[in-house]
């Protein structure tokens, strides 16, 4: 083989090897759940490592919020319809925090039923509709309002 051809072959093989390596490393990183984001379902099924810092996201269960005005201790249940656990948080909850609303919390999973949050973030409503439509939907008892904003199986891009 002439030297130029040989060099080009070397370059091509090297570049391909590099690309393969990059793909492999990226796949490993993705499979390792780099975000450390877990849904209540994953927590219920024991997929989330207990005792580690992580993020969880889900809907606040209606009627589950317990606030202590003195100590600012809050507790509420978080669900995605497939699993539920209780979040404990000391501090002021954000303005958009409401029952039935989607939230994201940072903190530590103490057990499969208890999550100690250091931060609670309310998820912005993605639905764009006029107030009349909202009222009409609520009057008709439409389930999609306030509920289906959070789609557990989609994984949600936070």
């Amino acid at each position: 083989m002439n030297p130029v051809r040989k060099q080009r072959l070397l370059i091509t093989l090297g570049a391909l090897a590099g690309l393969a390596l990059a793909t492999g490393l990226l796949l490993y990183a993705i499979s390792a759940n780099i975000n450390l984001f877990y849904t209540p379902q994953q927590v219920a099924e024991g997929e989330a490592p207990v005792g580690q810092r992580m993020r969880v996201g889900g809907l606040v269960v209606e009627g589950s919020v317990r606030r202590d005005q003195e100590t600012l201790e809050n507790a509420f249940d978080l669900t995605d319809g497939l699993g539920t656990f209780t979040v404990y948080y000391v501090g002021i909850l954000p303005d958009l925090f409401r029952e039935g609303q989607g939230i994201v919390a940072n903190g530590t999973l103490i057990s499969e039923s208890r999550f100690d949050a250091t931060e609670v973030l309310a998820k912005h409503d993605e639905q764009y509709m006029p107030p009349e439509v909202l009222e009409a939907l609520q009057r008709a008892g439409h389930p999609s309002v306030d509920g289906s904003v959070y789609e557990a199986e989609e994984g949600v891009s936070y």
Partner: protein
Amino acid sequence: MQDSRAEHRSQASVNMALPGHFYLISLVTLLAAVLTWFIWSAPVLPRSIWLGGGWVFGVVFYFGALRYPDLYWRTLERWYHELGSPRYFYRLSGLWLPWLVAIAVVLCLTGLVWGLAFAPPHHEQGNSYRIIYLHVPASSAALMGYMAMGVAGLVALVWRLKMAEIMIKAIAPFGAVMAAVSLISGAIWGRPTWGTYWIWDARLTSMLILLFLYLGVIALQNAIRDPRQAGRAASLLSVVGVINVVIVRYSVDWWQSLHQGSSMSMFGTAGSAIHPSMLAPLLLSMFGIYFLYAVTVLVRARTEILWRERKSQWVREEVS
């Protein structure tokens, strides 16, 4: 001397051994991939509409190409060669321009007036949401513009096509303005909605970097005196930049997700949750901005063509 040699070489590389079809197929596939990625990451319309439309187009194109292959390929090849020639491009764009201006003005005006005065308010944000009628079109135009610049850069590097270099130079300024408008309007909207003008949210950060990349391309072009060299350097930078934009989107997503949650992702998840009465003016202004983009790109490209070809006979006839 230098010029004629480059001219000769670019002629030679157009007539390379592989047939034109090969490059055309690759180009169309690449465009489709880029478009799919873009649509997937920012579904302003419901995905079903985009994908449905894409399928219809694809099926028509595929069967048409199967039945009348010669016609299709010859037409595409002709377009490719004709649009690659500055002179032809100048003449053609002169014919398009009045129509594009008219469509752009009509679409922008109806979209903005409808959005500002006639669309209903948002159920939570009240009237402040009306900024999306400027913000969303500007953001999407900035992103699309950068993708287009990357594709043009690739074409310019592979075939040394003069028109592709001119297109990059024409796209960059308006893209930078679009990114800036998107950032400014987003900041003003953020104040009543989130309570702050600026947060280091994934989308905001990547748009800021997009603006920097646009400015980098413009700066590089201005720094190099020789137009051909400047064009090729800018092509390389925009291709590298496209790869970077993709990585930045993921890296920033990952980075901010550990620190502060983006609780305000707009069109992040599947499907559009925009009510039709709000979507219609949004789509109008979006397409209006796209047409406006096309108008300015064509105007800039025509100026650049005139200046670069100033020594040729057709420009003399055209000008005087």
